[in-house]
């Protein structure tokens, strides 16, 4: 589309976090250390990947090491607003637009 030249422009001085910027006010999936995942609306972020998520659902994956049957239990929690410290963030991904 005609927007392409502009796109290249913005790609020139792009930083990785510029992609995160596109997800502002969108629903994102955030993978955290400690076998946790978050899914929620991204309100804000900073250069440390500190995040503010709204209406976030936290999923914690728990494996029982003793039994080693490979079964993974999940615990889910709902948070209205969540501050995520950046040092635990592994991955941020946009979720396909809501239906």
């Amino acid at each position, binding site marked *: *589309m*005609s*927007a392409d030249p*502009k*796109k290249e422009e*913005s790609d020139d001085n792009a930083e990785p976090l510029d992609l995160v*910027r*596109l*997800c*502002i*006010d*969108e629903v994102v999936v955030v993978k955290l250390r400690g076998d946790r995942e978050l899914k929620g609306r991204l309100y804000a972020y900073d250069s440390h990947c500190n995040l503010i998520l709204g209406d976030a659902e936290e999923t914690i994956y728990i494996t029982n090491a003793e039994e080693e049957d490979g079964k993974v239990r999940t615990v889910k929690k709902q948070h209205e607003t969540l501050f995520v410290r950046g040092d635990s963030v592994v991955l941020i991904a946009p979720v*396909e*637009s*809501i*239906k």
Partner: protein
Amino acid sequence: MSFFGFDATLPRDRGHSAHAPGFGQTPDAFAGLGGGAAADDDDAIDFDDTYDGLGDRLDEADDAFNDDTFGRGPASQQSIGKDFDFAGQTSKISNTIQEEQMLYQARQAPSQQRAQPQHQHQHQPPKPSKPSRTGYESYHDPNYIPQLEARADIWGLKPKQPTAPTRPPENQAPPPEPQPARKIVSLEEVEAMIRAQTLQQERAAMQMQQQQQQQAQQSQPPHVPAYPQQQVPHGQLHFPGIPGQGQFVPHILQRPQQVQQQAQQQPPQQRSGSRPQQVHAELPAHSVQTPPTQHPTILQRQRPPPNDPAIQQQRNAQPQSAPQRPPSQPRQILQNPSRLSGQGQSMVQPGMQAPQGPRGSGHNRGPSYPGMVVTNPEQLLHLSKEDREAFLAEDAKRAKRNHKIAQLSKDNGLMTPQDKNFITRIQLQQLMTATGNLDEQSPETVLAEDFYYQVFSQIRGAPRQTPHQPASQFAQTYLFQTNNRYGAGRRQGRGADNHMQRMEQQVQRAVEAAKAKPKAKQLTIEGSLGKISFSNSKTPRPLLSMKRPVSHDQHPHKPKVSVADRKETLRNIENVYMTLMRMEDHERTIPGQLSQDSSPEVIQKHMEWRTKIEALHKQLWEDIKIMEPINPASLTPHPFIAILSHAKGKKAIPRIFRHIDEQERITILTMVVVHLDKLNVVSHGVATPEQPLSPAMRDEIELFLHSVVPPLYAHIFESPLNIIIGLLGLILERTNVHIVARTKVGMSLLIMLISRAELLKEPPEINVVDWENWTTLYNRLFDSVEPVLPAIFPGSINDTDDMYVWQFLAAMGVGASPEQQQRLVLGVKDRVMETVGVSKALPPEMASARLANVNLFMRAIGLDVELLG
């Protein structure tokens, strides 16, 4: 060095008389300080010894001198006081000067402000240390009985005979009593002692002493309590057997931190005997040199603590009273102004007692204090029973009160004046930055200081500190924003209410207008509602036709937007926001109003500003991609429409509308109308009772109604009929009306267009051609909508969110011909009857609300729910 000067205070009497009669005041003040501070006990003992000797020797000669010098005591003090007043005045001036400095600093750029505070801090370091010392002093104060005695001596003597303070005490105080007095020091001990004495020891005691003590106690009850508690440690110390503690104390009080060191060093000196003399020498020097310089510093609170006491004494203590109270009060005054009187009294008491007991051993001795307790038992014996009881009662009372006061004042003096000053300064500084001198700070500075507070306060309508137009505009921007945000969060945001209310009003006005016109055939219709059931034959047709659009809709719009397109859209949105923010930021920097006599520079600035805002404006217009060619065949939505499919895109619309001109608004409105059925809030916004909307979709729709529709509505509301016709024509031509009419967003737009057209019908100068065009379009719309009438209600009968549907029906009904009205009624008759039926089972409030909705429509066609029984 000031410490040494304080030491001198101990031998006050001598110092006053011999060295510096004129400076008598200052030494007193120091002594008071000394009394307040607590020092090592051992050291104190040493000092006491030395003092005793000196006191005895000096008394006689000193007395003579004292008469000369102190005979004028008050007068001399006054004269001195004047000198000090001068210092005080300068200090006051310096205070104001400092305030001025603060003001000036506050007005300076923040950076400068910060830099200056640092400098101050650098200067201040000495202060903090001093305050801490003073704090220690206060802690120790209770322990310093000896000082009290010394003070008392001065106090008692001076009031009566300033010239010879030492002698009277000696005469009155019996030597043997000192040790017992020490033990008694603490309040609790005192109480215990009193009781024990009363019960066990009823021996002969000196009635004279008792009476004196009683008098002293009665007149000055408060100070006794404070000392007793502190005295306990002294008592222990005393046992080692050094009487001189009291005198040493003054040093400690004045400089708690240094006191200990001095105490360690000094004891030997004092023992040697040279110490006292040195002290005296130091005192005068201090008084002379330090007072003037110290006063300003104290006021400013930059100087060390030692100065403070002197200054405060000068300040607080009146020249005449100064000699008496200064010793103990200076510190106390600083720390607890309220305590002044009480402590002053306490000081006096020790003095009175001191003469009785301790004088014999040493004249400053703590024994005087204990003397009260020890002597009491003996005295009690001599007393008559009544007197004894009275005395005991009085004593108990006093002890009780003292205990209470001690408890209340146990935290007194924790904060030094410097501490308080420091805090006050911080508060003042914050006040300055918060409220002061906004005119001299640019809006940017204010914003940078606390962006969110500024915006918040302006939104909240807080008194505007900067009446500049830009600021309010700026606030407006965020006002808009917040409303939108709230709207997204809450179902019935404020914006939505306004919007809905206005729409409702418009519909109602249209209804009123329609009512005004007599409609001949209404009567038949009125009665026909019940009868219309006969013509049920018509209903099957719409049912059939409504299926088609539903199945058609789902497919064409389903294709998912590719990731690349989505990313592109997000990027576009970010660009829009970047430009928006730049514009809003730039708006705040608008130079002052242009006038005819504006200087060329101002005009130049204005030109530059305008150039930039126009560039940004152009940029914004490009960013929203509104001018991208419309490609009906394209599977991907138009970039602008894609922007609207994101929540943040919707939120941007009100902000964009603020910056664009009329023509561009029409362009946006047209673009939205043309793509009405491609908006995701429309294409995915068709709800059926079986398949209600997802919560996410509901939120999207609400957001759209709260953010995008109001600006559009504002524009439509002012548009002439030809534009309304054009827009409705576009909807009919380019969009799937069946879908549009079944969604909240689409219906809202239709309501706006129809009701606006109805209102335009009113003026007599109506353009006949336009009106014919409108009628044609309306008929087309009616024919298109009629088949879906039974399906326009999104939910079941229990879904209360159907007001907009009734509004739509009302708008349609107002403009409808009698025949069309009949068809309208036919289409929704079932729903009407159902709602009426349901409302009967509802609580009155809800029922009336729902019936009011139905009535909106019924009245539009000249009916009323009441008629349905």
